[in-house]
């Protein structure tokens, strides 16, 4: 993928994510999302908030194509997810970096290898891998911990490794479902600051959070879900 890190290059004109009349009903019959319409432009930083069971994770899963919508149209990074074949899903995923709430670091690999893993498995060559992994680790401030094992790191540090892994393939979009859910408040600020930093370089960031303080202190767009519907969206204004 191209280097779209320079935010001004794509500016806030072209939507990177677009939902049109999207509904998702799970096999159990739960209506997780109902008639969702939304546009997220390239270069934006968006908080997704709402009470438990509101459909936030479902919204993220639809973007990552971990789940399929029942009705409506979803376009992400130019991919029409509603028409997409299973075979093309890896190509979509390569345009996004995914951060997990529970870090998901491989316990028997050191920090460097954990980040490198994300490059190896999409076919990068070793010289690129060495360069990009070092870059990503120093960006999250963990260059000196490259040889540490995950269990030797604090929760916040582990999540920064997770962030480095999400960044290492230079994605256009960062998807993070409660990335601060398992770290203490101070670390949460640090992680969101990092994400904001990354966003300033042009990467679109989409983050689910329950933490009102974060939403209040970082002035980003906020989308609020309730009962599977978007009930508030401060695009361009305050909530």
């Amino acid at each position, binding site marked *: 993928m191209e280097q779209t890190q320079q935010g001004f290059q794509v500016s806030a004109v072209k939507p990177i994510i677009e939902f049109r009349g999207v509904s998702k009903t799970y096999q159990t019959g739960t209506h997780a999302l109902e008639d969702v319409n939304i546009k997220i432009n390239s270069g934006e930083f968006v908080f997704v908030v709402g009470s438990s069971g509101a459909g936030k994770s479902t919204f993220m*899963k639809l973007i990552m194509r971990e789940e399929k919508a029942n009705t409506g149209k979803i376009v992400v990074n130019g991919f029409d997810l509603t028409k997409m074949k299973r075979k093309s899903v890896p190509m979509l*995923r390569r345009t996004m970096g995914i951060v997990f709430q*529970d870090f*998901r670091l*491989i316990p028997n690999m050191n920090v460097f290898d954990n980040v490198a893993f994300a490059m190896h*498995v*999409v076919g990068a060559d*070793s010289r690129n891998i060495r360069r990009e992994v070092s870059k990503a680790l120093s960006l999250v401030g963990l260059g000196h911990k490259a040889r540490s094992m995950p269990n030797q790191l604090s929760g916040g540090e582990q999540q920064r490794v997770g962030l480095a892994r999400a960044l290492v393939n230079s994605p256009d979009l960062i998807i993070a479902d409660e990335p601060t859910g398992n770290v203490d408040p101070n670390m949460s600020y640090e992680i969101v600051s990092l994400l904001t930093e990354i966003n300033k370089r042009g990467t679109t960031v989409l983050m689910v959070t329950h933490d009102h303080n974060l939403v209040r202190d970082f002035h980003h767009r906020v989308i609020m879900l309730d009962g599977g519907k978007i009930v508030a969206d401060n695009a361009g204004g305050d909530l």
Partner: protein
Amino acid sequence: MKLSSVKYLVGEGFKNTWTNRLMTIASVGVLVACMVIIGLAVMISENVNMAMGNLEKQNVVMAYMEDYSWALYGDGANQKKGDSTEKADKNGIRPSDYTIHNEAEAKALCDQIAKIDNVASVTFVSSKEGLESATKSMLESQKEYFTFLEEKDQNPLPCAAKIAMADMELFDETIKKIEQLEGIDSIQSNSGLAQTLAAIKNGITVAGIWIIAILMIISLVIVSNTIRVTMYTRKLEIGIMKAVGATDTFVRLPFVVEGMVIGIISALISEGLLYCCYRIATETIIKTFGGVIAFSEMAWVLLLLFMGIGILSGVIGSVIIISKYLRKEGSEFAAI
């Protein structure tokens, strides 16, 4: 797919095999057991087939010819054997009633027999030779009578052809074809034995195929079970691979490598084990029966067979298991 990533993923596969070594050893053990049984089945059937072949070679067919000399027995004593001058004898039998009048004609008939499909070899047996072998097992007094006849040129035996067949299953068919040739009077054979031999050979082949098929399925199940365990212990990696956009081929590769490694290790161990078993077993067999197929004659076939079984069950087993998992929709990044 880039070479460097293939190298990386193959390396991961080897690592899996090692990390999972207890499972690996267990499945190698079961696979070796399957392969050794398959190998034994192959070697036993090969040896039995060879022994049968030897028996078959001894089980020859004698085709007796319509030989004029035979008609001369008794009354036509005044006529020289092979004399084709037309002159009916006392019983009104003319030389032209017979097809074969001399050895040259008999040998030509042998050549004709040799041309028939499935005839492995034909040996001409002159009446003199026939008498010799017939009298071999006789008592001295009986023998004297026949040698007396021979001396008087009154050998009662016609010329004959000693025939060996290539495939005993076509026995009856071949006999019919020989009978149809002009100049064949009668055929003496042991078709009962021939059929028994063919049936035994058949039975061994069918049993062998069944054993191999069943054990191959067992091998497949064993390997895929190991891969399933590996897969569950590596769900976290698979989830991450999918999240960062690894293709299915990439996700599968380490598991396929693991399956292949298990298969290849098992094949090599089985070959070694069989070699030792065979040597110990044949040392006693050779002393009692003599003549078994040397291991070296079967070594490559067996190794190929084992490698085939091992690699196939490794690859197929892992592909089936992983594909089933990869096709699952939803929650695919879930770690545990």
